[in-house]
């Protein structure tokens, strides 16, 4: 287990300016139940959208409707058979998500006093518009791998934003005073958390490029152990040193559980699609289920890593001494 050593990870002097600042940040806005429920609904709907998108790719149905934004030249519901049912459902859910996102952005702007949360609402709106544009380009440009992969990556980014809004409009986040412990370890937990997000993004892009036939499977498979090591390191560091902080502990446990699930699903997806399904004449149910589950759990994993990073940022700040650049630490001669 990781040892705190001569840890400075103790509850610091409550009078310190840093603690006051963090505490105030945590209590800056009143809890709004309706707003929170709507944010949770938006995040859940976004998760459904990711599953719908994964179904489109797994069933090779991305171009079953050759036009966009219309479907076969109109906005009416087309006959839902074959690949059309996957593609059109994805478009319908995406349309609903745009409406939900406009609502949550406006509501957050009006109801939430936290400045960063207001901007997050606007960022959600910008991301969902970018995502819609990428979805359109995917159809109109006949699925170039880089556009389709960008569509996959931006989709999961939007999901992360939706989850962050949902978590940080919750009662627990808004009414609980953050428990704060200073981090004196190298690399710091926030560095590890950010590194986890980075390796997950790289893995997401490699996976998307493979799914959209822009790359072989092996870069994605080769990066999987890197992701496993970084995420395990982050979660174990969080659990061994900061398990008293509930928000950090819960996120770290969830991260570990999702990582194990995701590795199993990745192996299953590899077996069904690459090893056994290479010569399949059509997408078969086992390969569709395993790959869709792999994408869905991947999205949850990324969102959890983002939440962990935010919780670490709130609860486990890097101690001041560590953040002072080396050259500024030199004594100043009079």
């Amino acid at each position, binding site marked *: 287990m990781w040892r705190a050593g001569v840890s400075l990870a103790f509850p610091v002097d409550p009078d310190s300016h840093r603690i006051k600042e963090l505490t105030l940040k945590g209590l800056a806005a009143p809890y709004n139940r309706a707003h929170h429920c709507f944010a949770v609904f938006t995040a859940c709907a976004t998760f459904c959208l990711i599953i719908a998108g994964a179904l489109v790719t797994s069933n090779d149905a991305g171009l*079953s409707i050759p036009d966009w934004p219309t479907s076969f030249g109109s906005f009416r519901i087309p*006959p839902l058979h074959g690949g059309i049912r996957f593609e059109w459902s994805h478009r319908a859910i995406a349309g609903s998500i745009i409406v939900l996102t406009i609502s949550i952005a406006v509501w957050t702007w009006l109801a939430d006093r936290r400045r960063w949360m207001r901007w997050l609402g606007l960022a959600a709106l910008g991301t969902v518009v970018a995502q819609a*544009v990428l979805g359109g380009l995917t159809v109109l440009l*006949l699925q170039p791998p880089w556009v389709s992969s960008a569509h996959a990556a931006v989709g999961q980014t939007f999901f992360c934003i939706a989850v962050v809004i949902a978590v940080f409009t919750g009662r627990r986040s808004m009414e609980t005073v953050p428990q704060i412990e200073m981090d004196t370890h190298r690399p710091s937990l926030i560095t590890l958390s950010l590194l986890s997000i980075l390796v997950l993004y790289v893995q997401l892009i490699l996976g998307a490029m493979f799914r959209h036939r822009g790359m072989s499977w092996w870069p994605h498979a080769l990066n999987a152990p890197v992701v496993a090591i970084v995420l395990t390191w982050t979660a174990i560091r969080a659990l061994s040193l900061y398990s008293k902080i509930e928000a950090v502990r819960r996120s770290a446990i969830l991260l570990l559980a999702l990582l194990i699930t995701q590795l199993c699903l990745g192996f299953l997806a590899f077996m069904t699609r690459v090893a056994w399904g290479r010569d399949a004449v059509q997408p078969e149910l086992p390969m569709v289920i395993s790959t869709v589950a792999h994408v869905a759990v991947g999205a949850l994993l990324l969102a959890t890593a983002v939440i962990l990073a935010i919780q670490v940022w709130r609860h486990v700040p890097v101690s001041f001494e560590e953040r002072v650049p080396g050259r500024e630490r030199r004594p100043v001669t009079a």
Partner: protein
Amino acid sequence: MNNKTWIAILSLLALALGLLVGCGKKEGAESQSAATPAATQPAAAPATPIDPATVASVTGTVKLDGAAPKAAKIDMSQDPACKGANTAETIIADGGNLANVFVYVKEGLGDRTFDVPKDAVTIDQQGCKYHPHVLGVMTGQNIQIKNDDPTTHNIHPTPAANREWNESQPPQAAPIEKSFAREEVMLPVKCNQHPWMKMYINVVKSPFYAVTGPDGKYEIKGLPPGDYTLAFVQEKLGEQTQKVTLAAKDSKTVDAAFKLQ
């Protein structure tokens, strides 16, 4: 947010939408040009004359070494209108005779040019399958695509050397006419609505090609005397080549055999 920020955000949105509309229009325009029948395209170089009194022919049979694999079953249940034969056509070998092998003169024709046939070749979508499964055409030759199914299909070639396109075709719709400008062997065509629907178009510059029938036989007629390389291409088993020398009025047999990989 101040007014300037709002204006910047709205401008970005307008730009994104403009780009999309632009892409859509460009796609439509290119699609139209791709659909232009060969008859209306600029005239090609005149065909190199061939003396009909000296022409030779090549015939042969393509075999599969070893037992043919059992054809994979297709699940067409996702569209009730699909009632075709539910077996895949990846390797069809009846009694060791390999069907759907594209045979063509790969080398030996030099700089000769050939007239493009005025008649279109037809691809029929019937029983949620493409008929034929393997097709040969000349560059610029019209391909007429029909839909005889009571369901909508989309026709989506995914070429490497030609331009990709994707069009839907509802039941009883007028045939779609297309042509391919560049040589490309085993150009895949698929339907994204029915993912088992696959076929291959082979686009070559000469009329000297054939596709083996269910008996594995092929025949290429009208070849001028010369030394040629014949290529045999199968969608899964790859390509083989054989050299053949044809004298005037020759009729030679060139057989080939593929091994399961």
